[in-house]
């Protein structure tokens, strides 16, 4: 028994993937606590979890691709509304609806990717903002959704309840889905970052001419970054629809994309944990604390101020701040020790 532990488990615990697994386990535990926690805190954690997924995809695009795309909202919308449309109106099973959403996401992100080749840097943010507006307009104009801005409800008088692999899903079991997707999502992004693909993306970001000399095909990698980010966003949308059971087009517009940007920038664009921290600060605190005490406006001000301060003084994000604080504390402690105990 001990041998097994030393041989297999201990080395695994040293890897960062272990931390990701712990996150998943925590989320599953959360599911079990659904009756204990107040509903808005429960909701805040779950929402933060799938927004984190969208943030991960976006961070890959921004931090490693160097592409500032404001289209995240569009993909969340595609995920949520495709799921609803295919499941409810086309009466297809759930898995098919999810796959349809992902395929649509891939197609749209490839379109975004091709657009990004012609347009660079700052213009890209504007154009992706526009593209995401177009997607929102399209959703809004589809006849089934044309009743204003609200999307459909998955609860209420429904044709069929949600079923997956024969199990009936209620809103709370969406957490399990979220847990699985979040863990897998974290692992994939982490693996990509520490692989040749991640390095290739970084080299394109730094200098696309040098990257081409080294044999890196710009189109291929740009498209890849966009597709990953689009799929992640769509998954977040799907999860949100599974959990919240309704969707509102206005929730996923520019403000949402800006909030995701804020979360990623504040937390630290390059680190998987940093993004989690950022998402928690932006979305989690907002939902769990500020909305509760009706301080919505304060949360906006703090979020915006945080973005500005972090970008001005700590471009590495709060994660970098934590690292610096940790080092500072260690230094201070050793100083104090020297003061009390002297040197040999």
């Amino acid at each position, binding site marked *: 028994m001990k041998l097994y532990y030393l041989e297999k488990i201990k080395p695994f615990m040293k890897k960062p993937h272990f931390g990701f697994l712990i996150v998943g386990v925590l989320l599953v535990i959360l599911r079990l606590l659904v009756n204990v926690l107040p509903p808005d805190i429960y909701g805040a954690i779950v929402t933060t979890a799938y927004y984190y997924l969208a943030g991960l995809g976006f961070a890959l695009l921004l931090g490693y691709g160097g592409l500032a795309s404001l289209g995240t909202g569009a993909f969340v919308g595609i995920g949520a509304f495709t799921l609803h449309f295919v499941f409810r109106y086309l009466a297809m099973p759930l898995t098919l609806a999810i796959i349809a959403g992902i395929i649509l996401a891939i197609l749209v992100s490839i379109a975004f990717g091709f657009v990004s080749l012609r347009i660079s840097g700052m213009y890209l943010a504007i154009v992706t903002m526009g593209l995401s507006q177009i997607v929102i307009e399209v959703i809004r104009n589809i006849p089934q959704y044309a009743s204003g801005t609200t999307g459909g409800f998955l609860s209420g008088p429904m044709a069929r309840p949600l079923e997956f692999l024969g199990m009936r899903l209620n809103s709370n079991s969406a957490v399990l889905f979220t847990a699985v997707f979040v863990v897998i999502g974290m692992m994939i992004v982490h693996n990509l970052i520490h692989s040749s693909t991640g390095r290739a993306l970084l080299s394109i970001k730094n200098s696309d001419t040098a990257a081409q000399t080294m044999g890196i095909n710009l189109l291929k990698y740009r498209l890849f970054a966009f597709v990953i980010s689009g799929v992640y966003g769509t998954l977040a949308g799907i999860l949100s629809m599974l959990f919240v059971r309704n969707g509102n087009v206005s929730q996923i517009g520019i403000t949402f994309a*800006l909030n995701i940007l804020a979360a990623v920038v504040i937390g630290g664009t390059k680190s998987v944990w940093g993004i989690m921290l950022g998402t928690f600060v932006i979305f989690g605190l907002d939902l769990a604390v500020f909305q509760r005490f009706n301080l919505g406006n304060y949360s906006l001000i703090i*979020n915006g101020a945080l973005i500005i301060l972090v970008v001005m003084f700590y471009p590495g994000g709060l994660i970098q701040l934590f690292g610096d604080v940790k080092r500072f504390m260690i230094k201070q402690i050793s100083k104090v020790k020297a003061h009390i105990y002297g040197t040999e």
Partner: protein
Amino acid sequence: MNFATDILSIIISALISFSFLSLATFGIVLIFKTSSTTNFAQGMLGILGAYTTSYLIDKQGVVDVTGLPSVTITSPTQLILPILAGILVSFITGFLINNVIFKHAKFTNAATKQIITMGLVIVITGLIPLIFGQTVTRVSFPFSQQTIMFQGIAVPVHQLITLILSTIILLTIFILLKYTKWGLGVRSVASNERVAGMMGINTSVINSMSWAIAGALGALSAITYTAAIGSMSVVTMTSIQINAFYASILGGFSSFGGPLGGAFLLSAGQAIFPKLLVTWNLAAWSNTLLYVSIILAVLIKPAGLFGKKIVKKV
């Protein structure tokens, strides 16, 4: 309705939207050219001024019973002072933004500056209800409630005044840019900030003034626009700002006038597309199609319709 009247009404409505759009667009262009920042907070700067104006107008008279503002405009002076105050507020805010934030930011490449402006959007969105109260909409006041008839088309006097006002302002700015020392300074900083600084131009003053002026333009745009549509909320200027960005990339950032051309094309499109699509009952898609066409145009000419491409030396 004959063909000529149709064309005329299209042109007039295009001019009307252009009057609001041009001011906002120019503010964006000014900041972009001088400090290489895409200012996402342009609209918010403007609405800040508009709120100030509206607040000051309303303060002039409050109904005792309901506590709600109720003012009747009897003389122009009631309007002018609050308007100027609103413009001043945005002017100062723009100035502060540059001097307090951008000057002290440690790592300012274009992307970080962009992100800072996004942060500003969020901050101001939260700040406005705190300063001006929780009321979601505030009715702003137009220059005049009258309309005049021109060749059988109703033109509100307010829009007419706005159009004349913005034309005058833009022409003045263009003349200043071309023929004054300040204008030369702005154009040099726009071309290459570092070298301009080395040539003795006070780049920080130029930058501060550009932000301040952009703020003022935004305020004017917001004030006139909210007056025209008769309501105001925190997100009113968002659509104008998005359109201003579109206009800028359509026209191309490489000149000061290109984005204005883009703004006119966009306004024209906003007038034409619905008229065309209404025959197929697709009027709701006119916005979408307009945006799609702009993006297609930008894909074909990435530097903008009136822009020039800059090649980087490796």
